[in-house]
């Protein structure tokens, strides 16, 4: 049974929106971080979908790249969060406003 590509795209859009809204409205850095991951993976899903639509592997190759980058990002991001927590004793994004003038 063939699921139409449109469904995948709608699912990806929904995931992306969830991620985006989460980044914008949640104050916990860890949740924001997870939401970013969610957005990345929704894009991966889009890539794979279009790869299948076009009948080649370009979309899958790109999604592998995204996964690799996301893995690297997770290591750096989690390290940052750990250090921030040590510094500020909180994981609230709004407490980190040292760059404000």
């Amino acid at each position, binding site marked *: 049974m063939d699921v139409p590509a449109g469904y995948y795209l709608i699912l990806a859009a929904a995931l992306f929106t969830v991620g985006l809204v989460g980044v914008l409205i949640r104050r916990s850095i860890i949740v*924001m971080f997870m939401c970013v991951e969610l957005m990345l993976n929704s894009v991966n899903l889009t890539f794979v979908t279009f790869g299948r639509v076009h009948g080649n592997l370009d979309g899958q190759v790109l999604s592998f790249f995204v996964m690799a980058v996301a893995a690297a990002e997770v290591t750096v991001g989690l390290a940052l969060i750990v250090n921030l927590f040590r510094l500020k004793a909180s994981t609230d994004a*709004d407490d*980190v406003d040292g*760059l404000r003038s």
Partner: protein
Amino acid sequence: MSHLLLAASEAVPLSDLASAPGGSPAALAWLIPVVPAVSAGLLMIFGKRLGRVSALVAVAAMVVSAALSTSVFVHLQAQPTDARSFEHTIATWMSVGPLTIDWGVLVDPLSTVMLLLVTWVGLLIHIYSIGYMHGDEQYSRYFAYLNLFAASMLVLVLGSSFLTLFVGWELVGLCSYLLIGFWFERRDYATAAKKAFVVNRIGDVGFLISMFVIFGAFGSLSFAGVLPEAETVLGAGSVTAAVICLLLFVGAAGKSAQIPLHVWLPDAMAGPTPVSALIHAATMVTAGVYLVARTSPLWALNPGTGLLVAYIGAATALVAALIACAQNDIKKILAYSTVSQLGYMVIGVAIGDQVAGVFHLLTHGFFKALLFLAAGSVMHAVANQTDVWLMGGLLRRMPITAITAGIAVLAISGFPFLSGFFSKEEILVAALDTPGAQPVWFIGALVAGLTAFYMTRWFVLVFLGNPRWTSIEPAVHPHESPLTMTVPLLVLAVASAAGGLINAQGEDGFLHHWLEPSVQLYRGDQAFIEHGIAATSVVIAGLLGIGLAYLLYTRRWRRPAPATGLTGFAQRAFAVDTFYEWSVMRPGRFVAWGSEAFDRRGIDGLVNGLARGTGGLATFSRRLQTGFVRSYALAVLAGAVLVTAMLLGSGLGR
């Protein structure tokens, strides 16, 4: 310096004149200004270390100059009458196309006479200054300036072209600024120095423009290239000649303090008194008269110009004499007297009798130097008081000063057979003989009477009567000045008394024959009335003035109430300064304020406004940086949406 020596020994004669053999005094004339100039330089550098010795260095330099001048004079006298002019080129100053300007000296009878006056009177003033400036903190600086002043005047006198003369002319202006403002700690003195400098600049502009015109007409600026050619190039009655002469007179009026540029001279007494003597007698003010006498061939082309200038001189003489009658300051009376006598000299040189003008310049140099030095001696005795109403009765306290001053007063008043009598009489006779100048003679005679009046008033108030200096606080004990001051007084007294003898015979006098090759006389020779009557009238006017002043002022001992009416008007120098203040200074200040405000508000305002605008923009955009990560994320989203919308809108996305 050695190449200068070499060049100077190659004397370059004027076209039709004999050359001076190398090593003759005339060929060494260029040393006359150089020696005091070098001494001035040395004193400026080493003066502090030399201390009191610096006076000796300065005096020695003047002795060398005076000796050289005298030897030049003796040398010239040994030459035949028509071979007494030498021009020596020392070095080329600039050479531009057809124009070559040399550093050169012109030694001729006229410049030699001036040399003698400047060096000898200058020397006496230097010697006098040793005593007068005793104890001043700036002793060596004073002598350096004094030497430089003498050197500048010598450059002016010896210059062989208009431009070298102009160099001396400007240097003299600079030195007068330095010396008038010598005690610059006092604000009004510094202002007086500035005033002298600025007023002189006005005259200098006239002189400069006249040089442009001369160069345009003659293609040369050297005296040898202009003066002998004047008649052939321009022709009699030439308008160009009149323009040149009038512009030259603007310069001369600045230096020689003629109306309307006379305002600086009375203020110039802010400097030390010997400096006033130097400015008023030997240097500076005589420069204008010398310039007119030097350029006589140009003036001869247009006697009408000379007549006009003579009237200006007469007006100056009269106005200054009237002002002098109302002054109460020992030096101001003398200062206005100088302005008045300069008017006399200008009458002489402008009316076409340069000999009479230069003759009066010489005799005036003697007695005015003497008067100022005597005034300095008096001020020395009464703790630098200058109010004549605080003096009196000093004859017994300081007899040498009083008697020498008395001789000078008689000489300037035209007392028979003293120097002023001869020189004034000659100027008046020249005015009498020149058609159209008879009113000048009348004014001159009147001024002679006024001169006698105010000088006698001066003498009586200072030296005769009961002593009023007893009221000076703290108490002073007047005493005769030291020898260094009285000896110059005595020498000048002899010169003032006997100085007239150098030209006592008028047309046949020594000075007349001596100057004849240098100047071109153009005075008229139609006697208006008998000369005898004219001369007598001057003597009578002089005696009347002396008698009147004596009668008036030997009786009134108390200081009169502050003068009102016409006397008060004269005391304020006919409000010329006020007039200039309102007509020139205040509008000038207004323009300056306006420019300043425009610069500050307009131009600076534009620049500052731009800077402030940028700053404001930055302050505003700074607020965008909230530091909240989520708002940044929102901005990113908004940007992404915007870009997407634009892509869709422009159809690029399709």
